[in-house]
């Protein structure tokens, strides 16, 4: 892994978007088993997947994984924890005035 530069990878993936009453979810699975590390960036190619209400869409797509450099990965590992508040639910958005 390069210290400062980023490398990219093209990987096939399966996206699943459920916009149904019983479940609202969206997931990306890399078909070649690629693993995402801290600081990596993922871009799924193609048009936005817009599931209408009641629809479940499963599609094969291509994705680009931009690997974080070693420095970035370390930085993300060291500082990621400070974003922990994102994991907490407060019912409301952070805007003081709407």
């Amino acid at each position: 892994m390069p210290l400062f530069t980023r490398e990219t990878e093209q990987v096939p993936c399966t996206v699943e978007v459920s916009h149904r009453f019983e479940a609202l979810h969206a997931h990306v699975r890399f078909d070649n088993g690629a693993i995402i590390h801290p600081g990596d960036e993922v871009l799924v190619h193609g048009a936005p997947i817009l599931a209408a209400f009641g629809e479940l869409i499963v599609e094969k797509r291509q994705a680009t994984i931009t690997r974080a450099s070693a420095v970035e990965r370390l930085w993300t590992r060291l500082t990621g924890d400070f974003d922990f508040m994102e994991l907490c639910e407060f019912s409301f958005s952070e805007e003081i005035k709407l």
Partner: protein
Amino acid sequence: MKDHATTHDELHAEMAADFDTTAMATQTTLLNPRFYTTDFDEMDRIDVSPVREDWDKLLAQMKSDPNKGHFKKNADWDKVDWAGMDPALRVEFIDFLVSSCTAEFSGCVLYKEMKRRGSNPDICELFSYMSRDEARHAGFINDALREAGVAVNLGFLTKAKKYTYFRPKFIYYATYLSEKIGYARYITIFRHLEAHPEQRFHPIFKWFKEWCNDEFSHGEAFALLMRTDPKITGTWAARMWIRFFLTAVYSTMWVRDHARHDFHKALGVNIDDYDQEVFRKTSTIARQVFPVELDIDHPRWIPGLRAMNAAMIDMETCTKKGGVTGWLGHKIAATRAMLAFAGLYLIPVKRNTPPASVRLEPSY
């Protein structure tokens, strides 16, 4: 989990084209969850044997899916007069629905990722049930949003997403607290509206009782996970972190709730009392696993929260003002917020020895 990435602008800016023709969609909200990664090897090494009996019982209960039939609209879902709703209340209530939906949705993504990446069968099973529940909750809220003419756009997948990182320990503290505080918030509102049904301005509140039982059992699972290794809660550093988490989460909740006057006024809830009640319930429950408890009756507690809230409001005002005075004002307000936080953090905590048996049942 929170909705950092669903900004106010996105909430109002993206107008629906022909995305959803079945509902009277007039605005579209782009759901924008954050993406996380963690130390999956460490999670794979978790050994639940010390809590096996409780673990199996809890997982069997989650597998039986007691809430499977609950999230359906029935005759109790009465007609909502969206057009007649006070516009200020409508804005705050939509913010409530969108934020809650994003939170459930992000939880679903995180739990699913953990299930997929893990190889420990106990852990994978747990996360598959939790991910199922979160997707179901998100779907239910989404339907309420559709009725209000708000369409959810899941097109975020084709935008670049950066993965941030949390240590497993941090995920346990934060999600445990989030699930338990979610339970305390929902059950407190539910009980209040049981006593004052005339203030129930939307039917979704009727579903809160069974709903929050899901939150409760998710919290139980994290409590058991934290009990698998004494290092997670037993060390000095762990106590300092837990204290920090509690202070950060409680004070953030206070600030956000106090920014939503119309919502709480419509429910007939006094925000100070409601928040204190939620803290009290959460703290009582958290004795099952946390070795420290914040002293929310300390004379410096409420004044500290008020000082923090005032500083946060000034920060936002200064940001909007802009310019040199705005910048300077923002820095001063931020310093005040930090001092208020430090003041709250330094209030002496109550020590607690978690009981031998971890498991609790929802009892409020």
